[in-house]
């Protein structure tokens, strides 16, 4: 019955990617539809309450239009993080992560599968948010720099998916992961300029925003829509790009060492 080794030389990570895609697709009401609805509610409430009080980019862009790229990116980021982190912690706590640890998957393959699936979910939710919110500000569809939109969406989802890998592996219980999400990810997202331009902030908070990498993700993403940004887009790209490279490098190193996975 034994198969010769030559018959078994295929790679396993595409199957792990497929399994991860299937995992969120099987509960797509929860993983895709629900965050789209949440973003839509944010838009309806915030644009209704604040549109007459907030002027952004010197009045060149309506508040609803300004808000949409922010909400799209926020959804991309939060769902990318949620996918990797929730999948890993569930697998750890239920014990079925062993099925992934026993086969000969490389650390790079393991990483690629989890992160690509999370990026797919983040980008699917982001696209969904964009489509359902366009009705409120159709001018958003006239993308000034589409390549920047795609580039920042990819980088943002990559970064948060990677952070989700680290968070999911680090946390030993759901409570710890919730703390990671609620005390790090959510504040950094909400204070990154999703709902406002940092020029509307007091100088201290403006300065503080420059230390928030999420701010550059959203500002660069928004530049792709309007050709307008709070900081030069190349600076955003450089900061986000370096952050991504360092984070991916550290994460791959952790996986190669079997950090908290292979004791």
């Amino acid at each position: 019955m034994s198969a010769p080794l030559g018959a078994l030389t295929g790679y396993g990570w595409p199957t792990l990617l497929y399994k991860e895609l299937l995992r969120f697709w099987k509960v797509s009401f929860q993983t895709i539809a629900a965050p789209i609805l949440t973003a839509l509610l944010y838009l309806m409430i915030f644009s209704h309450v604040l549109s007459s009080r907030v002027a952004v980019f010197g009045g060149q862009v309506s508040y609803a239009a300004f808000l949409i790229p922010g909400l799209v990116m926020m959804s991309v980021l939060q769902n990318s993080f949620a996918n990797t982190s929730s999948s890993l912690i569930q697998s750890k706590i239920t014990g079925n992560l062993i099925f992934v640890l026993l086969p000969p998957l490389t650390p790079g393959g393991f990483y690629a599968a989890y992160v690509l699936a999370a990026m797919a979910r983040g980008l699917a939710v982001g696209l969904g948010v964009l489509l359902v919110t366009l009705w409120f500000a159709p001018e958003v569809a006239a993308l000034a720099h589409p390549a920047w939109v795609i580039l920042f969406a990819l980088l943002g989802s990559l970064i948060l998916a990677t952070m989700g890998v680290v968070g999911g592996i680090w946390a030993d219980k759901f409570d710890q992961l919730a703390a990671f999400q609620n005390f790090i990810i959510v504040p950094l997202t909400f204070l990154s300029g999703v709902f406002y331009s940092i020029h509307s902030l007091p100088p201290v908070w403006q300065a503080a925003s420059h230390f928030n990498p999420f701010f550059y993700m959203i500002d660069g993403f928004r530049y792709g829509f309007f050709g307008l940004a709070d900081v030069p887009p190349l600076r955003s790209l450089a900061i986000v790009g370096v952050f991504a490279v360092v984070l991916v490098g550290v994460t791959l190193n952790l996986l190669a060492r079997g950090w908290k996975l292979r004791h």
Partner: protein
Amino acid sequence: MTPAVDIRGLARRFGAIDALAGVDLCVAPGEFFGLLGPNGAGKTTLISILAGLTRADRGSVRILGHDVVADYRVARRLIGVVPQELVFDPFFSVRETLRIQSGYFGIRDNDDWIDEILHHLDLTSRADANMRALSGGMKRRVLVGQALVHKPPLIVLDEPTAGVDVELRQSLWAFIRKLNTDGHTIILTTHYLEEAEALCGRIAMLKAGRVVALDTTRNLLARFAALTVRLSVARVPAAWQPRVLREAGPLRWLGLTTYAELEELLAALRRDDIRIDELALTETDLEHAFVRIMADPVAA
């Protein structure tokens, strides 16, 4: 011939506890090998290192000549592990679970073998059922199936029959026996010692992270070939106290070497006017050998 498993000087410490304190073990290809020991003896740590789930502090493990750390990609293709815990992925059906597990090993289009596994594990009718809908015994059998999807030459079963009813246990063992007959090396840990006695050709007993006995099952039984007498008595004559293997209330198990010794024991009880309420005599089985080896202070 390259050993199926070659373990040398394997040590692993968790805090102040030596889970493994220098284990040397060699399993030949095609063996049905038993790994026995009380809870905490180091069996699961040993299996985890074998499977690449745990890293050793010292020593090496080779599977068919491939180091489980340096050459892990080949080593992990050569081993199939049935874990002790009853774990499953609630998102998938039985067939999806087995297909996905095949894919992790780079094997696509594995349905013919999956169908055969399902048949042998009596799971064909439940192939499309979600894992959550299965009974404990069925989930256990799916775990066995997952360990076999890539046709590994070495199969490690960590207490695979826990929670499986008698009938299914028999069919499971028939299947595992067939795999062994087909040339697969089997390593088994179990708490059902009669199971190990019936199946395993050779047995290693672990205690506190060390191998305290390693021999063929036949030799182990022969080494402790003797009688065990179970008495319900108020006390045992002082001279016979060292022969007491176990005590539970008025019940005492004494190890004897010959039937003549039984006569001497009964005479001693009569001399001391000790009334026997109950008496039972059994010949040594693996459980008795196990109890005596574990009770041996030299083995501590």
